[in-house]
């Protein structure tokens, strides 16, 4: 019975993989048709986008990355939308995913409000500046943003390859700011069947990093889970589970401020936005169910390869080299 379940899950995963892999290719091929005169009906792209985002939602959950970090480079690289709209919707996608995940993480005390609130204030403030800077640069020349986005995505892929998380970092000396803010707590580790006490250190350095994270998140419309987790876990010493959950929750705040800037500028077109958000959220829900029986490590490697390709494609597009089609 279990074998049948695993086999059918693996078949489903392969199908999803093929779907996601084939979608950019199909999208790119059709993009040429659109650019060359466009005989596609108006519903063609929203439908493709919905299916694509559904697959992306499954992959994102299983690879442990946010939807935005996959959505922005892939959609800007392979769909015919301007980078302004992709970034605006990318933030809404990341925001919706984080809002949906938030309640479960808060109730299980994995996402910690005391840790999240100060860093959210810093990141959300600077994500506004990042969003305004990003919109200014893309008004000057969208290729600047495309190249910088590509370089950032390649950097994120490298970070995913090389960063080694620490399950339960040892923090011997809690610094004064961490102590004053009460950055610590207790959570129940289901695997080890024990309560885990934790606290943080290097608070000033960690806060400074959230300035950079906010700027990058706002400028490129990326959710910043890929950066939040290493800073919270490796730099500030929060346990991995707390870091992952608090990071996901943080996105709901950081992305809100940047999303408002893009939305007020008119960068969220509902025809693109709604299928993206709904597709990714439904995909994430299925992804959470599949997570229990899938092999996340393989999916993670696959996503890293996709990210590398998407990053290089964005750089190629921005530089106008045409090496990747």
């Amino acid at each position, binding site marked *: 019975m279990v074998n049948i379940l695993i086999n059918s899950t693996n078949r489903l995963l392969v199908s999803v993989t093929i779907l996601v892999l084939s979608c950019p290719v199909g999208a790119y091929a059709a993009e040429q048709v659109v*650019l060359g005169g*466009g005989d*596609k009906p*108006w*519903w063609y*792209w929203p439908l493709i986008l919905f299916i694509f985002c559904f697959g992306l939602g499954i992959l994102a959950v299983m690879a442990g990355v946010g939807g935005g970090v996959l959505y922005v480079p892939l959609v800007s690289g392979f769909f015919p*939308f*301007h980078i*302004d709209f992709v970034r*605006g919707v990318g933030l*809404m996608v990341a*925001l*919706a995913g984080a*809002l949906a995940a*938030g*309640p479960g993480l*808060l109730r*299980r005390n994995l*996402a910690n*409000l*005391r840790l999240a*609130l100060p860093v959210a*204030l810093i990141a*959300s*403030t600077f994500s*506004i500046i990042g*969003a*305004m800077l990003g*919109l200014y640069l*893309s*008004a000057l020349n*969208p290729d600047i943003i495309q190249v910088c986005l590509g370089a950032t995505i390649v950097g994120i892929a490298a970070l995913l390859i090389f960063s080694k998380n620490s399950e339960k970092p040892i923090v011997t000396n809690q610094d004064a700011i961490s102590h*004053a*803010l009460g950055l610590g*707590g*207790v959570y*129940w580790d289901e695997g080890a069947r*024990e*309560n885990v006490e934790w606290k943080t250190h290097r608070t000033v350095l960690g806060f400074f990093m959230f300035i950079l994270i906010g700027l990058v998140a706002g400028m490129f419309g990326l959710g910043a889970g890929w950066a939040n987790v290493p800073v919270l876990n490796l730099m500030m010493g929060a346990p991995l589970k707390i870091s992952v959950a608090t990071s996901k929750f943080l996105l*709901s*705040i950081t992305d*809100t*401020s*940047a*999303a*408002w*800037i893009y*939305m*007020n*500028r*008119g*960068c969220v*077109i*509902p*025809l*693109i936005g*709604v*299928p993206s958000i*709904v597709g990714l*959220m439904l995909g994430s829900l299925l992804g959470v169910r599949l997570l229990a029986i899938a092999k996340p490590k393989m999916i993670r490697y696959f996503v890293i390869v996709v990210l590398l390709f998407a990053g290089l494609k964005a750089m190629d597009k921005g530089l106008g080299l045409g090496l990747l089609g």
Partner: protein
Amino acid sequence: MTAQANLASRPSKEQVIYANILVIGVWIGLALLFVTYFIYLSGLMPSHVDMTLITQNWDKGVNEYLEITHSPHGWGWLALLGNGDFLNYIGLVFLALLTIVCYLVLIKGYVTKKDWIYAAIAFLEVAVLSIAASGLLGSGGH
């Protein structure tokens, strides 16, 4: 889990309230997105921008797109709520406003507990998000 361990790892009251508001808000937001998008696509209400015009111009920068489609920026969509396309903003804006609502509840909780540092942090966050939402920053498109 022992009773003592259970107590230690229990989320704070504010966290639970925050989570409860989020869970209700997300489902309302999603329902709004579904309903308004259905109205939009089904043509039950007229669209301000023809869908073909959107697909012909979504490869242009936002300033050019707004100009061609005569679309507003900032909160200008409120005046166009009688159109199916701008009706979708109700769901999008609802989701984007959720965090501010949750934070307002947090402020009340922290003030009650006399946790002034966190009350101030939450208050500042509401201010930051409200300024971003107001359209005072960066809504000047053209």
